[in-house]
């Protein structure tokens, strides 16, 4: 670890923090366009955050310290997760401390805390959301881990940096297993980020909400941190997807000249991913909650199939 990589790490920390709401704004904008509504502008998430931060927080009488501390933990976990993904360059000091299995662990840590915080007030919607979130996650988390396993077995490493580097440098080889992994990852991405078809981020309809039900009791700065964390989570997932399946343009270790170019390439990649996400959300319908296990079970099985293909074909 030297000063330059440390600087790079700091740069990325700031980058993910600032760029994440922008990406969310872009996705929302695209969706508005596709659904024939007039868009609020891609800077709307920042305005929402600023508004929330200025308000007075209202806590329920039965809130315990766990409830107040969870937003901070959630925010930092997501920030950490996004900061270790090779977004523009690979040699991040953080990725030696946290490999892909630990990354899934950090996501799980954040999820367990938000589910516990949802149960803390003791309202019907809070526990409902916590229960559904844990239901989604017990299948989504293994599926995500299996996707990472496929990548790790190809790259012979569980470090995300090494995986991205390997994938970026290999000659173009078609990995059938990665195709399975890609579909599974996309399905998990939709489920874990509370998107259609599993959840819907833009509704408070009690029969269907999952993530929104959990954070119903939060307000002001706590809610702002949670919303920001959700945006960072989406950003992290999309950039993980890039690192695994589209490592084009990520600067190599020590190659500082490639950094501006990497930044330039990142923008259209993110824009395309955001557009695709909005498209997927606009053309598909939400599943009934008890269809969700089937959906996620499919993702899990696809990922397992991917590993089996990898072991059979050895590529």
């Amino acid at each position, binding site marked *: 670890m030297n000063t330059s990589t440390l600087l790079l790490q700091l740069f990325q920390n700031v980058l993910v923090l600032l760029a994440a709401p922008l990406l969310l704004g872009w996705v929302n904008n695209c969706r508005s366009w596709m659904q024939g509504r007039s868009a609020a502008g891609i800077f709307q998430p920042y305005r929402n955050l600023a508004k929330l931060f200025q308000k007075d927080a209202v806590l329920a009488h*039965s809130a315990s310290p766990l409830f107040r501390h969870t937003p901070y933990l959630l925010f930092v976990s997501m920030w950490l997760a996004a900061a270790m993904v090779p977004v523009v360059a690979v040699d991040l000091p953080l990725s030696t*401390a946290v490999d892909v299995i630990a990354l899934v*662990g950090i996501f799980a840590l954040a999820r367990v805390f938000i589910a516990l915080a949802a*149960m803390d007030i003791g*309202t019907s919607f809070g526990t409902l959301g916590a229960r559904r979130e844990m239901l989604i996650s017990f299948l989504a*988390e293994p599926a995500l881990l299996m996707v990472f396993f496929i990548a790790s*077995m190809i790259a012979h490493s569980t470090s995300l940096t090494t995986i991205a580097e390997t994938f970026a440098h290999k000659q173009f080889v078609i990995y059938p297993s990665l195709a399975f992994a890609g579909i599974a990852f996309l399905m998990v991405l939709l489920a874990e980020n509370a998107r259609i078809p599993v959840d819907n981020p833009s509704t408070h309809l009690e029969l269907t909400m999952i993530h929104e039900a959990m954070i119903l009791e939060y307000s002001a700065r706590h809610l702002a941190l949670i919303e920001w964390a959700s945006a960072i989570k989406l950003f992290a997932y999309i950039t993980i997807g890039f690192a695994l399946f589209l490592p084009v343009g990520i600067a190599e270790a020590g190659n500082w000249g490639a950094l501006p170019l990497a930044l330039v390439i990142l923008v259209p990649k993110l824009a395309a991913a955001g557009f695709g996400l909005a498209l997927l959300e606009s053309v598909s319908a939400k599943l009934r909650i008890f269809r969700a296990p089937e959906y996620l079970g499919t993702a899990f099985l696809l990922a397992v199939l991917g590993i089996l293909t990898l072991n*059979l074909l050895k590529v």
Partner: protein
Amino acid sequence: MLPIDYALCVIALWLVLAVLGLALQGSPRAITRLVFPLGALGSLALAATALVALSQTPSVAILPLGLPDLPFHLRLDALSAFFLLILGAASLGISLYSAGYFRATAGGTLGLLTFEYHLFLASMALVLLADDAYLFMVAWETMAISSYFLVTTDHKIPEIRSAGFIYLLIAHIGAIAILMCFGVLQGAHGDFTFEAMRQNQLSPFWASAAFLLALFGFGAKAGMLPLHVWLPEAHPAAPSPVSAMMSGIMLKTAIYGILRVSFDFLHTQHLWWWGILALTLGLATALYGVLFAAVQSDMKRLLAYSSIENIGIIIAGIGLAILFHANHQEQVAALALVATLYHALNHSFFKSLLFLTTGSVLHATGERNMGKLGGLIHKMPWVALLALIGVLAISGLPPLNGFVSEWLLLQSFLLAPSMPQLYLNMLLPLGAAALVLGGALAAYAMVKFYGVIFLGQSREENLSEAHDAGPMERAGMLWLAGGCLILGLSPVFFILLIDNVSMALIGHDLGSTAASAGWLWLTPVAAERASYSPLILLLIILGGILFTFLAVRKFYHGRVRRGPAWDCGYPAQTARMQDSAEGFGQPIRQIFDFFFGVIREVPSPFDTKPHYHGETHDRLWTLLYLPIARLVEKLSTLIGRLQHGRIPLYLLYSFVTLIALLAFTR
């Protein structure tokens, strides 16, 4: 003095304390103030001895006790030392806790309980030190019987008596298998010392027979499928410190037995299918246990099922190690073995901790049904905080200890080189998938455990009088919670310790590579393949939280108002509208409907006094145990026909038997 002498001194101390407990029946204060803390001191001494003995050459001792010509052989090697470390470290916390917990118990019961408790501790230590089959079986049976009496402490309740009966029955079925296993291992030489068994070279058939008998016999004690049924009955029945000891320590003696037989006595004769068998059984046990844990409503039953899950993971790890070892892939075998042992150590800490917290909850509220608890974080902040540490650890979340062992085990799945048996290459990823699925479900069960008991609003009126744990109870739980933290944050240090066991059993360790990147980074194979640094992770998370907190304060404000809960504007909500334990487990019950035996009575909409009743059954009862019970009953009625109560007839039986034996032996 050799380490083994210190260990024997601790055993002697425990035996003295056991007798002292009986003698001091009249003064319960003396027992809780003196006997239990002294027992804890013994535990500390044992843990320290084991720590020293781990890296030393094996020490032996022969005690002039037992049968003529068959003195007790004892040996303290790295494997024994590691499990003695588990015993000492976990029982230290449990004994401290017991000193506070049993304060309110009446003198006579307390005296007996103290006697059984320390006898149980001493017998577990002797099981781990025994170096001949005779002493081993004596200690093993003492352990089973003392724990049986501990389980049936509240013997006036019929359910507890029947739970104790099932426990004793399965313990003895297991003991018979272990006895037969030793019979096979001595290989017709008539020498029952373990030293002789180590030297014996058995044919593959007999080696397999010994392994299967050991897996069955020790598996019965560990709670392996399908012999797990005693565990969810006995653990809730016992007083909480005893449940903690049984789950945290006693199950590990069975793991010790499996390792002793398979890696010490048979280690040159491993066959790869043993590994597959143990791996499959272990993973099946793990998934079975965790699914049942997710639908329980009794908090101690939930933890008992979770113990089954963890034992499954440990057995699967042993299977993996055997598989690699049989294929001469020693480096990965060492990794799998270290991961397994690490998980055993972790489990003894977090599961004991969680059982102790249920003890405090039980003391404060008198309620085991989670559906009648809730909101205890406000009344019992200490217990709630310590339970949270336990819950995070057992759910396998970084940076706590449960994650380290799962991480290591997953690494050994991932790093598995290709096997000579082609289909195994396909089986191993499926194993990893099952392991991961089990881990995610464990988080579900644990969120339910913590959320329903400690969070939300109190579901019953009487909970407002709940009080926090006393200082001794707190001290015991703090020790265990601290263990969870330290085991999670400095894995390299502990892996270097466990390496001694791996070196002794398979001649390979991780030492040179695990610490190659410094003590901060855990790198089981090579830094570029995998690295994990829990301490840095924790520091970053804490630093990040502090930074975020200060930044929000600096740029905005910290104003807070308190108000009623929002809940989408619904004003008339009550504590009854929260999920009960059944409610939280409902999705799992619905998805895995085919798997559970569910009995449900739903009231009709016109019912004026609606009553809901739901039960989730273990299908193995009806599919396996009841048929066997019926068969045994049928057989015994058949045999009963021989009995007529007339003496001449019985004399005739003896005569016929004698003739038959003479004819047979001639």
